[in-house]
């Protein structure tokens, strides 16, 4: 069941233009599956009228905590990044459909670009609990774009590309040598659209199952306004409700 709740910011870590927000609710959390997101109300920001959709980066059921990994790209995310420990943030959650979890024994690759790495963390943790060991392939423009690499590495092997070669292999994620060397059963992707389309192309070429998480602009986040549609093989579907995760078979790309 979806809810609106005031969370308290109990922890904050800054990574350049990104920030990790640890938020605690008084009440127990609703059930959250990897890939779902929250709609955050941005208070005290005159130029931010609507809520902002942010993926759920991590969940700590025992402590009623969720984490968000936010990249400060505009006024709204900058205001979120400026929140102080002790501040309250109003969230609507959990929203959307999550990723389809793999079954034991499947070889999975989690591909993240830029801030798109955010939902992959909770996804990987959940898989690991089910006994599936994920491999991460994370890409950024430069080393500084890749945040929390240690945290990812502690869950699974973590491969990296940077466009300037400052970390891992030089180039885009799609150019990483892993594609030549290994086979995967399931590929999970989140990142800039162009990158997701490129990964989807590889998956399709190799006939591999692939789910991507779309980041369309949203108003309601509930499937009510029909603003966030993706033109799929089934027609215009709301990313907030039918997604944000889609199997690439359903998409026109």
């Amino acid at each position, binding site marked *: *069941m*979806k*809810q*609106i709740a005031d969370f308290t910011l109990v922890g904050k870590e800054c990574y350049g233009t990104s920030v990790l927000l640890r938020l605690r609710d008084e009440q127990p959390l609703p059930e959250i599956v990897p890939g779902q997101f929250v709609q955050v*109300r941005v208070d005290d920001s*005159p*130029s*931010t*009228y*609507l*809520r902002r959709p942010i993926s759920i980066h991590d969940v700590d059921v025992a402590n009623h905590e969720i984490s968000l990994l936010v990249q400060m790209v505009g006024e709204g995310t900058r205001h979120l990044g400026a929140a102080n420990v002790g501040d309250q943030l109003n969230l*609507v959650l959990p929203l959307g459909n999550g990723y389809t979890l793999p079954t034991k024994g499947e070889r999975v690759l989690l591909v993240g670009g830029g801030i798109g790495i955010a939902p992959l963390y909770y996804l990987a943790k959940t898989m690991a609990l089910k006994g599936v060991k994920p491999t991460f392939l994370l890409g950024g423009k430069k080393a500084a774009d890749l945040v929390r690499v240690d945290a990812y590495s502690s869950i699974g092997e973590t491969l990296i590309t940077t466009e300037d070669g400052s970390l891992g292999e030089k180039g885009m994620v799609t150019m990483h040598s892993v594609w030549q060397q290994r086979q995967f059963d399931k590929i999970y992707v989140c990142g800039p659209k162009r990158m997701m389309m490129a990964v989807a192309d590889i998956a399709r070429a190799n006939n591999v199952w692939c789910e991507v998480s779309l980041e*369309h*602009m949203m*108003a*309601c*986040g*509930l*499937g*009510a*306004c*029909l*603003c*966030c*549609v*993706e*033109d799929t093989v089934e*027609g*215009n579907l709301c990313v907030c*409700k039918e997604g944000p995760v889609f199997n690439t078979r359903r998409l026109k790309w």
Partner: protein
Amino acid sequence: MTIDLGRGLVLRNPVMTASGTFGYGEEYTDFVDLAQLGGIIVKGTTLNPRQGNPYPRMAETPSGMLNCVGLQNKGVPYFINTIYPRIKDFDTNVLLNLSGSTLEDYVRGAEMINTLDKIPAIELNVSCPNVKQGGMAFGVTCAGITQVVSEVRKVYHKHLMVKLSPNVTNIAEIALAAEAAGADSVSLINTLMGMAIDAERRQPKLSMVTGGLSGACVKPVALRMVWQVAKAVKIPVVGLGGISNATDAVEFMLAGASAIEIGTANFIDPAISAKVADGMRDYCERHGFQKVSELIGALEG
């Protein structure tokens, strides 16, 4: 808190939710007990299915937003067969917002809706700015509105609410034409036509270039139009446009509205509609009004 809008449309309280902003109500049942509302107005529906406009369909603006959804919906028959059975037993008034591109579509659609027991009213959308043939042509001239309202009136025998476009020189004139053609009430405003540009990319932010402006920013215009129309017509006026809290809702009532609708504010606080109903009750108590209907047009001076 009861409001009687006439011809069988009686609201438990003046608060309804605006078409296109509350889905089919189902999307909000986790947040609002629909029995706390006077009514819900479901997504704009056309006779035939429509895919709507391409993404991007919305852009944020100062204290508001633009949308060019373009009436994406599965058509009246699908509504009747698939959606209606799911929502007809909601403990509130369920109104259907009917749009069209031709006179025939409006009439055919209204005829079909007329058969649905649990739909006490149509809100006739003659004012959608987001589709070439979205009825806006009907909504901006007296001749257009007279034609569509009187034709629909012939086939539709329940409460006929006509939703007016604010993109006109003289809204009172249009409202009078709707009244004369047989409308039981008018609701206003639909969105103001606007536009947004991404200066860095030198491109429109919306796929259709222009879209409809809604949210708090339009409230002063909406309030003025409600006031003008309420002075002009005798049928009830339903006010909307930027209502974000109970105080805003009271302002619309004071300006002459008999009921109100909440649109964009649902996106910011999915529970806002019920809160507004509560807040209006508090206002009445605090100011010594026995019935919420005493607020209608109670502006002084």
